């Protein structure tokens, strides 16, 4: 580009300024405009200065799979040779604060698979019928939106939508937080992926090096529970309003005293029946009062989830680990009722197990110094093992299907530049719970940024 070339057209944007230089026709109008500008400046001066921080992350995936999509075939997925590309997610984060008042807000919007789009079109190819066109498959989600108030130096209280403090993904959800190309398959099979809910939260950073988190959030909706995904489908996303008649309590304790090492445990407990879209799981009784929705109450189906987790980022070492177990009371009654749900609700309607188990761990070692690379680079070969069973130790009336047990072995390497840009390559070998099923292999490349 020639910097000083004269282009008359480039003056076009300046035309308004040239007109502005012409004296005003009426001096009165000019005075009014001046006053308005002054008032505006005063108003501006009254508004407190916000501390605003923009961030976000993106993840693109390119995968080669040696198996077909249908895992429900008799011997598991058939042999195939497929490439799958995915604009997995783009997340935009906005943090704003009024430090003098100890107020903060965080907003996180996620575009999954490139967003979404649909339209109704009038189709004259046939006879002029209306057709619902899906223009773009994907989702746009507000994953976080909360206000937080600091109470002193160590305590903060939040209200809004935030991550449920269970598992590892509530804290380590950015692609630069974990080593694998994808989030741990076992964890996302059993509980919702980066599980967000609405409610209130208290965080207390105990000076000794202990972080305590307490949350009261809306519970899950048991219509979405299934064989394959245990309680994942109970995450309320289908309706505009979240039902919170059944609340859940979450407690989490993390030891953060040791530099580069944190570990802890969390527990989740909440009922799931009264968050169903319809009151269709109620106790039957003789003298029912017709003025009451559920005169004898609801069938209780509380969900308990316990986990222990670990994270290491010390020197060249990186590691994560999780053991998560969950139990659903009255799973048989939930399953029986779900089997009769309408198709239009868009849930699987398969029986849900009483228990589920997810265990995973990954470990890596930074070899960038050994390769003569500077501090800005990290090259971390790693291994990961996932184990998940969404029908762990079920009741006698539920066939313990090995199809719902899986172990995934992953080996790969992650490259990170200045903790912002990353590229990862790994190979996964998945085995279902019986030798009858064909193993599944995936080679996956992911790249993106985190800022």
């Amino acid at each position, binding site marked *: 580009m020639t910097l000083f070339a004269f282009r008359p057209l480039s003056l076009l944007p300046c035309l308004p300024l040239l007109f502005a230089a012409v004296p005003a026709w009426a001096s009165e109008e000019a005075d009014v405009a001046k006053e308005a500008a002054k008032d505006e400046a005063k108003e501006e001066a009254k508004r407190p200065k916000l501390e605003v921080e923009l961030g976000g992350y993106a993840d693109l995936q390119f995968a080669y799979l040696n198996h077909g999509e249908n895992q*429900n*075939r*008799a*011997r*598991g997925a058939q042999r195939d040779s497929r490439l799958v590309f995915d604009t997995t997610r783009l997340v935009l984060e906005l943090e704003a604060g009024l430090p003098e008042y100890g107020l903060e807000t965080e907003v996180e919007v996620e575009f999954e698979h490139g967003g979404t789009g649909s339209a*109704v079109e009038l189709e*004259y*190819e*046939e*006879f*002029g*019928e*209306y*057709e*619902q066109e899906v223009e773009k498959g994907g989702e746009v989600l507000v994953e976080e939106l909360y206000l937080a108030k600091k109470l002193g130096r160590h305590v903060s209280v939040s209200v809004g939508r935030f991550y449920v403090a269970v598992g590892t993904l509530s804290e380590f959800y950015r692609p630069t937080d974990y080593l694998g190309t994808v989030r741990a398959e076992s964890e996302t099979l059993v509980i919702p992926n980066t599980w967000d809910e609405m409610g209130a939260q208290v965080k207390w950073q105990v000076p000794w090096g202990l972080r305590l988190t307490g949350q009261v959030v809306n519970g899950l909706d048991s219509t979405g529970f299934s*064989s394959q995904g245990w309680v994942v489908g109970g995450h309320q996303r289908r309706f505009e309003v979240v039902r919170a008649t059944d609340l859940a309590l979450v407690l989490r304790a993390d030891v953060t005293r040791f530099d580069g090492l944190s570990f802890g445990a969390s527990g989740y407990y909440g009922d799931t029946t009264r968050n169903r879209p319809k009151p269709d799981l109620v106790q039957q009784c003789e003298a029912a009062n017709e003025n009451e929705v559920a005169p004898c109450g609801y069938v209780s189906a509380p969900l308990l989830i316990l986990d222990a987790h670990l994270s290491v980022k010390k020197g060249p070492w990186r590691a994560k680990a999780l053991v998560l177990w969950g139990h659903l009371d009255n799973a*048989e009654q939930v*399953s*029986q009722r779900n*089997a*009769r*749900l*309408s*198709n*239009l609700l868009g849930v699987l*309607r*398969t*029986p849900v197990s009483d228990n589920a188990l997810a265990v995973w761990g990954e470990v890596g070692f930074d070899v960038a110094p050994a390769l003569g690379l500077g501090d800005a680079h990290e090259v971390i070969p790693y291994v990961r093992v996932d184990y998940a069973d969404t029908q762990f130790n079920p009741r*006698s*009336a*539920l*066939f313990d*299907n*090995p*199809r719902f047990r899986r172990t995934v072995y992953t080996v790969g390497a992650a490259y990170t530049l200045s903790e912002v840009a990353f590229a990862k390559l790994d190979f996964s070998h998945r085995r279902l719970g*019986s030798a*009858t*099923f064909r193993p599944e292999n995936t080679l996956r490349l992911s790249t993106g940024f985190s800022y």
Partner: protein
Amino acid sequence: MARFSLSVRLALAPVLVSGALLVGGCSNEDCCDMPEVTLKQDLVTNFADRVVVPTYRDLAHELTALDTAVLLLRTEPTAARLTAAREAWFAARVPWEQSEGFLFGPVDSFGYDPALDSWPVNRTDLDAVLSSSDPLTAEYVRNLQETQKGFHTVEYLLFGEGGTKKVEDFTPRQFEYLTAITTELQTVGNALLAAWTETTDGRPPYRDTLATAGQSGNTAYPSVQAAAQEMVGGIINILDEVANGKIADPYDAKDPDLVESQFAYNSLSDFTNNIRSVENVYLGRATDMTAQGQTLRDVVGVNTDLDARIRGEISQAITALGNIPEPFRDAIRDPASKDEIEAAQEAIRKLQDTFEKNVLPFVTQ
């Protein structure tokens, strides 16, 4: 069939829920010279009472007979009783396949379709249950995956590969499993009939919901036209499914596992009964019934060119299916059968095209 009903139904949803359409810009010559036809209430009443309910009543009856035949076989395993159980299975397939021209309402909404008719049979999971010592209680069977029960699992257990199974090949555990799932089938068949004829879970009989289309307070079918669109939509769905799903999937993949009713060699009979289902809806009567009041054929115009064309194309589709060499599971891999299979697909697609372009406008004008 279970596997495509939702996606196909969703694809057609706009047609089924749209209001009156402007056909002024239609590119099809036939549609713009269409006579104005008044859709009468008895179009849907007749359809509900003389097509749907009799077909489901027949299905419930045949599923009860199948359960009885299988129980008798278990009590006294003889070649004659095995033959009788197989005959009962064939008999139950007829009303089921003849009901697939109207896979809407309870059969779809409450998952009766996949509960009755999912395939391929999940033989791995089936074998795992057979080799386990789990007691096969009603609760346990209800919790099994849909591909471990229903018509095709019964078929696999009764017939074996290509109908080669002998009565002495049955194990006590197989009998136990077989009777458990035929009992479950009978329960589903009765529930499906009840959903149309009785108040269930506080919901009125679906027969009433359909028959009172257009009457005040009917939110499911705010007009007779809306119900008529559902009827024609059901026809289009099943024609699409037979040509582009039931035949195309196994034929394109050359995969016998994807063939419906492959163990009993009943696939072509199933497909033919699907076309009969279309014919029943069009003529406004189930097999062995007579039509009363307005039918879709009346709407099109009895003995008009279009009516003759539709009936001719139904007949051609059935003939084309009959030309495919049995068994269909082998024909899909035989190059010599290529022309017959593709001709049948073509004939069914042609009929589907006629319903889409020439019949649908009658109920959406």
